[in-house]
């Protein structure tokens, strides 16, 4: 029964196991499911194992039992972005118009429905041909808007206006909170990180040392002498700084997610910060890089034995790294170039590494990767690279 339902679920990316399906059959045979409502609830509890898939399950359920058309996931996302753009347009029409490179008046003539359609079309153009295309936003293009572009004096649209600009909003839809998900696929990664742990005895003496107890009892001529030890606990402090901004990190999201998940389960004292491309005066505690900034100076108060791990592709326009005020985001223009800040950071923590998810052949092309490599020992984010990085971090001196 409901075999087709099962397959549509699988097709749509809900990881349903055959055993779960058999279990559903058992539930049905028990006679506890008497209506479609019951079936909806029971099948979900048995088949779907994560709330992230609930929405998808609902869609498939409606499709299968109510004949509602399934949405193409991509179209769905674009519609959302277009809606976000409309919101932004209502707040700051000039910025949106500028981002699209059309006159504000043109856009003002349109009704909201037309606007959404217009945004949607432009967004579709964008998904079909960005990255090196010559349309409006994207990376490494020649269009004047966008970033990392080669257009002389090319300027990123984000962060110019007081409120967040339209494109920023669209891009915000693309950001991912690395802490959110990511199935743990590469368990070796956890093994590699585990070696970093430094176990030291700490806390009250409440663990019986059997060997010592026996020895001491014997020495005491059979009078029991119980010897207690402190428990071993992990005292290693780790700071993880992740580049979660922009399009250039997008291909590596999955691997960074895996790293993040393992790091979080491995280390007791782990702090995570986020930055965009490179580090200026502040890093952020929240993945949106908005609410909770932390001054870089404050890191000088941290334990210098803390292990610092930076994760990023280290690829950006040279001026972002080398010139004062090179920050893409206007709101964090600084008086000192980013390279100074990076050097400052590396002077604070002697045990530090930069993990780069970009493939090794890209490193040879030089650019900013070469510069950052001179400051931080850089390792590629593969199992081998990670192990080498861990060896480096675990070194005593």
């Amino acid at each position: 029964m409901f075999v087709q339902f099962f397959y549509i679920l699988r097709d749509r990316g809900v990881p349903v196991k055959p055993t779960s399906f058999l279990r559903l059959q058992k539930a049905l045979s028990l006679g506890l499911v008497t209506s479609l409502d019951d079936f909806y609830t029971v099948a979900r509890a048995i088949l779907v194992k994560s709330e992230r898939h609930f929405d998808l399950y609902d869609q498939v359920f409606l499709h299968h039992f109510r004949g509602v058309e399934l949405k193409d996931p991509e179209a769905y996302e674009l519609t959302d972005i277009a809606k976000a753009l409309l919101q932004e347009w209502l707040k700051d029409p000039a910025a949106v118009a500028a981002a699209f490179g059309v006159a504000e008046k043109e856009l003002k003539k349109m009704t909201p429905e037309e606007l959404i359609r217009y945004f949607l079309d432009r967004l579709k153009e964008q998904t079909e041909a960005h990255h090196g295309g010559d349309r409006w936003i994207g990376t490494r293009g020649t269009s004047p808007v966008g970033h990392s572009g080669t257009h002389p004096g090319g300027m990123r649209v984000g962060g110019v206006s007081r409120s967040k600009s339209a494109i920023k909003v669209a891009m915000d839809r693309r950001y991912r909170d690395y802490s959110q998900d990511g199935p743990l696929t590469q368990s070796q990664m956890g093994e590699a990180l585990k070696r970093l742990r430094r176990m030291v005895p700490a806390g009250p003496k409440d663990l019986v040392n059997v060997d010592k107890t026996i020895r001491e009892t014997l020495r005491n001529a059979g009078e029991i002498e119980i010897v207690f030890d402190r428990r071993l606990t992990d005292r290693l402090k780790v700071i993880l700084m992740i580049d979660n901004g922009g399009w250039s990190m997008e291909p590596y999201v999955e691997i960074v997610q895996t790293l993040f998940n393992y790091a979080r389960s491995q280390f007791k004292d782990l702090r995570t910060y986020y930055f965009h491309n490179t580090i200026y005066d502040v890093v952020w505690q929240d993945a949106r890089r908005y609410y909770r900034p932390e001054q870089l100076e404050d890191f000088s108060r941290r334990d210098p034995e803390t292990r610092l791990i930076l994760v990023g592709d280290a690829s950006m326009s040279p001026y972002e790294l080398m010139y004062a005020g090179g920050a893409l985001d206007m709101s964090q223009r600084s008086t000192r170039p980013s390279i100074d800040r990076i050097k400052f950071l590396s002077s604070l923590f002697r045990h530090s590494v930069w993990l780069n998810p970009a493939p090794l052949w890209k490193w040879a092309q030089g650019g900013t990767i070469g510069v950052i490599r001179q400051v931080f020992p850089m390792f590629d984010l593969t199992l081998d690279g990670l192990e080498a990085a861990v060896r480096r971090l675990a070194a005593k001196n």
Partner: protein
Amino acid sequence: MKENEKKRHAFHGASKYILDEELAKIVNISIALEMPLLLKGEPGTGKTMLAHAIAENLGLPLIILNVKSSMKLVEALYQYDTLTRLNDSRFGDSKRDVSDIEAYIRMGKIGQSFVSGFKTVLLIDEIDKADTDFQDDMLDVLDQMSFDIIEIDKTVKARHRPVVVITSNAKKDLSDPFLGRCNFHHIAFPEPETMRRIVDVHFPNLGDEMATACIQNFYRLREIGGIEKKPATRELINWIRALRSDPDFKPAILERGDVPYLGVLYKKSADLGLAARAVAKVKR
């Protein structure tokens, strides 16, 4: 199971717990399929309360295993009290038989639920705190409903299969084999209407005006961005309690946008600061 027994073991909700129909169905199907029920949801959605409610409703004793990060599975199963045995063998003044190791085996929480003379509800709280190995091994035990005591080479089999409820706060998923053996439910944060019923259960004689004002404000306050720990049901209940104990308080104060006792709702100083600023903005 006999028909009357089946009836007795069907779950409807308990006196202090507001249960939606969907969840009741899932609980019942999990009991019928004899599978552990995994509950996820943000703190304060009543995951732990549910286990209490199931136990109360079915009239079964509740055994709670609070998972800790350093916990080993064997601690949850049994403990061999070597120290007492050593002590007894030295001084010989106890009634226990020193040569009988079994006298020194103490059951852990899972063990207790197995050897209990009647059916129990076993709550395994905050499973995400333990490492993956713990989780997988534990599910093996719960699957087979038996475990071995190595010291005395004895297998403990569950006399009555306990109703197992597992809670998790984690955002990340548990391991696949683990999920495969559980039924899953995510408890969403209650809607204002449900919240009203929850409030009514806790404060039966709260005025309509007061309840509406409090709940409206509560959901408005949850909207504030950048908060690390959003106020949950527990905070709302405490907040209403605080408001009621203040003789000068009137619901009209809330309507003006003022929020007294913000500290009851926000437990972290950074959150409190953010919320206080947001409230001040509305007031102006």
